[in-house]
């Protein structure tokens, strides 16, 4: 596998990472509705699951090699405030728990989505299974 990756052994508890910002446009909303069939009708209202979907991409846009995710196991999520087209979101995340297992390591990450006013609009906890760093050969 080419390219540096961030393995279970590299995960540091409490390290906070803030992503770049992303302005949600009508194109995001239209594409999301077209692909998923979800999301209501009002053209300016951002479907609730769209910021969550965008946060999964923003999570890669931090100064760190991509996390070697083996599987995304689940999450708990709260939607606190509605968003409208034109709002700019960024994500803040930090690992709170890491548990070593034979086939990888479980990492629990707390994530917040914050708008341009600094208001936390969505937040929750993600559980990932992360690969072990391969032994040097």
């Amino acid at each position, binding site marked *: 596998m080419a390219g540096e990756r961030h393995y279970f052994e590299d995960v540091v508890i409490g390290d906070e990472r803030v992503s770049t910002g992303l302005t949600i446009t009508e194109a995001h909303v239209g594409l999301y509705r077209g692909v998923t069939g979800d999301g209501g009708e009002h053209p300016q209202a951002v479907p609730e699951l769209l910021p969550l*979907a965008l946060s999964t991409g923003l999570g890669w846009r931090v100064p760190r090699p991509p996390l070697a995710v083996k599987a995304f196991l*689940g999450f708990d999520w*709260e939607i606190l405030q509605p968003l409208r087209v034109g709002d700019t979101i960024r994500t803040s995340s930090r690992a709170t728990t890491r548990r070593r297992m034979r086939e990888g390591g479980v990492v629990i990450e707390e994530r917040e989505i914050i708008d341009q006013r600094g208001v936390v609009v969505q937040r929750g906890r993600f559980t990932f299974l992360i690969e072990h760093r391969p032994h040097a050969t």
Partner: protein
Amino acid sequence: MPGPPHRGRRPPPGPETPELYAPSRCYVKRARPSAAGRVVSYAGMIDGRRYFEEIQVGEEYESPGRTVTETDIVLFAGLSGDYNVLHTDAEFMRQSIFGERIAHGVLGLAIQAGLFTRATQPYATLAFVGLRWKFKGPIKIGDTIRVWARVLAKKDTAKPDRGLVTLDRKVLNQRGEVVQEGETDLLVERRSGG
């Protein structure tokens, strides 16, 4: 904008008076009772939404199926920016426990949300406020998924014009295996308005 000029009662629509009814605003923008006595909204949809009082604990719904394609995954990677190898590198994934690329978990969740709207008459939903979700198995290219849902609980909220409806949902593939499951919380309007 004033309507087309006329005196007294508006004549009924017919071939002899096409000019009065030709402008779209006469029909499209004015709410009018339909045959069923319901109000037709601006978008021409019947307000057949179900309010908090009408939803019963234990109700079950099942959606039609939808086949998840490579196109769905590529579009979702482009939309979300999640280009993880799990979803985008066919060669890498051939060596993995899955044997091929798999759909983003959140793509499955979002498709499920879309399928749910086709499973039942729409709720008078004010907001989708939370979920607790587990990814149990992969959704692979060509898999056909559907959603099964059951009303788990109804709760009052601080605001009297709405209530909280919790649904238990399972996403099933063509073999009947549960690939995702969890609970979703929706704020639903009361018909009485509190």
